C-alpha cells in the first residue's frame, strides 16, 4: 500500500518541482498557497517585534533628547546636500530634453517597510517583508536600503511579500560605471557580499574601486541608485574576457527597514510600441 503512495508522491513532487522552476503561472498560484503558512511567520517574528516596541517605549528622556539632536544635525546636512542635488536634477532634465532622450524619470514614490525576522532556506537568498498587496506592492518592485539596491519583490501575498536579494544566483541587475558610463549586467553568485559582471570584454574599462549604479535599462530598477563597487578585475587572456568581481553596497545583514520604490517611466508612444513588440517576441520565444 505504501509503495503506491510513495510512487504517487514522488511523481507529484517531481511535477511540482518542474512547474515551480519553469512556469510563471504556477508561481502565481504558489503565492496564494503561501497565505496558509504566513501566520507561522508572523508568530515567529512576534517576539522580536515586541522587544523592539518595548525598547522604543522604555527609553529615557535623556536618550531621546540626544537622539533628537543628532537627527536634527543630520537633517540639516542632508537638506544642504538635497539643495545641490535638486539643481543637478534640473540640469539633468534639461540635458535629457536637449538630447530628446527616450525615457525620463518621473518623480518616484518611496515608502518604508520593515523586515520580518524569519530565516528562509540558506540556499535561497530571500527575505520576507511585512507589507503586501494591501500596501500596493507589486511583483518586480525595486527594494533599497540606505546604502544601495537590495533586490526586487518576487511574491506578494495580502500582508507579506518576498524579496529576491541581489546575492541570489538568479538575480540580475543592469548597471553603469559612474566613471565612464560603461554598462554591464551584474549577477548574483549565491554568496553574500559578492556579485559578478557578466560577459565583460577584455578591453572594457573597469578598475577596482569604481562605483556602479543602476542604468535604468530594462525599466525594472530606477536610474542612478548605487549598486556595488568593483572589488577585483581578473583578465582571462585565452577567452578575451575579464572577470569583474563586485561588492554590493547594501548591507542585508544589518538592515531591519527597507525602502520600496514606486517608479514610473515616461516613454514616447513610439518607444512604448517598440517595447511592447520586444516583450511579446520574448514571450513567444519563451513559449516556443
Amino acid at each position, binding site marked *: 500500500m505504501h509503495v503506491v503512495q*510513495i510512487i504517487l508522491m514522488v511523481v507529484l513532487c*517531481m511535477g*511540482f518541482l*518542474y512547474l515551480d522552476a519553469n512556469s510563471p503561472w504556477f508561481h502565481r498560484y504558489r503565492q496564494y498557497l503561501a497565505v496558509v503558512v504566513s501566520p*507561522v511567520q508572523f508568530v*515567529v517574528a512576534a517576539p522580536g517585534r515586541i522587544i523592539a516596541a518595548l525598547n522604543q517605549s522604555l527609553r529615557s528622556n535623556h536618550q531621546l533628547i540626544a537622539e533628537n539632536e543628532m537627527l536634527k544635525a543630520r537633517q540639516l546636512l542632508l537638506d544642504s546636500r538635497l539643495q545641490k542635488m535638486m539643481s543637478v536634477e534640473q540640469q539633468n532634465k534639461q540635458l535629457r530634453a536637449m538630447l530628446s532622450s527616450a525615457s525620463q524619470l518621473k518623480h518616484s514614490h518611496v515608502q518604508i517597510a520593515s523586515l520580518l*525576522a524569519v530565516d528562509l*532556506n540558506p*540556499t535561497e537568498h530571500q527575505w520576507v517583508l511585512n507589507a503586501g498587496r494591501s500596501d500596493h506592492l507589486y511583483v518586480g518592485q525595486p527594494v533599497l536600503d540606505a546604502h544601495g539596491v537590495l533586490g526586487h519583490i518576487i511574491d506578494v501575498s495580502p500582508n507579506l511579500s518576498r524579496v529576491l536579494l541581489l546575492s541570489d544566483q538568479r538575480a540580475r541587475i543592469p548597471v553603469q560605471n559612474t566613471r565612464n558610463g560603461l554598462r554591464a549586467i551584474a549577477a548574483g553568485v*549565491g554568496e553574500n557580499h559578492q556579485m559578478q559582471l557578466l560577459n565583460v570584454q577584455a578591453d572594457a574599462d573597469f578598475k577596482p574601486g569604481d562605483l556602479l549604479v543602476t542604468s535604468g535599462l530594462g525599466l525594472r530598477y530606477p536610474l542612478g541608485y548605487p549598486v556595488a563597487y568593483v572589488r577585483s578585475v581578473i583578465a582571462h587572456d585565452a577567452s578575451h574576457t575579464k572577470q569583474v568581481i563586485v561588492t554590493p553596497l547594501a548591507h542585508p545583514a544589518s538592515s531591519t527597514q527597507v525602502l520600496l520604490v514606486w517608479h514610473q517611466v515616461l516613454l514616447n508612444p513610439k518607444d512604448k510600441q517598440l517595447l511592447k513588440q520586444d516583450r511579446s517576441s520574448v514571450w513567444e520565444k519563451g513559449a516556443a
Partner: protein
Amino acid sequence: MKNFYIRSYQWISILVAYMLSIISLPESLAWYRPQILLLVMVFWVMKSNTSGLLWIAWFSGLGLDLLTGSLFGQHALALSLLIYICLKLRPYLHLYRRWQHGLLMLLLSLFYVAIQVWVLGHFQRNFVAVSFWFSSLLTAFIWFVVYPCLPTIRQATDHCQLLLDI
C-alpha cells in the same frame, strides 16, 4: 478519542517544527540549522500508529517549502522518501541500540541533505555551502540526546486523559 489526541499532538509538533525551521539565526549559523521536521516525523513513525503518516509527512513537507521559499516539492520529496524508509524499517527499530539509532538518524539526515542538494543542482538554483552537510551531524546529535528522554506517546495521552478527568 485517543487517535484524536495523537493527531492533534502531531499537528502541534509540526507547527513547532515549522517555527524552529524559520526562527532567525546569525548568518554564520544559517547553514547548520538541524532538520527539525525530519526529527519530528521520525519520532511519530516510532511512537504512533502508522496510518496516514506518509501523507502527513508529504503535506507538512509542502508546507515547509511554502514557508521557506524553497522550490515547491523540495522538502516534500525528501521527507516522504525518508518516512517511507522509516516505515519499512519500523519493525526492526526497537531492536536497535541507542548509538545505532543515532547512526541511523545520521544516515537519514545525510540522505535528506543529499536529496535537497540534488534538487537544487538539477533545477539550477543556488550554491550550497559544504557546511550544509554538517547540519546532519547536528540533527543526529539532537536525536541521540533528546530521543531517550521523550516520554512514550502512551504516557502522554494517559496524562492528557488524567487532566480531563480532573
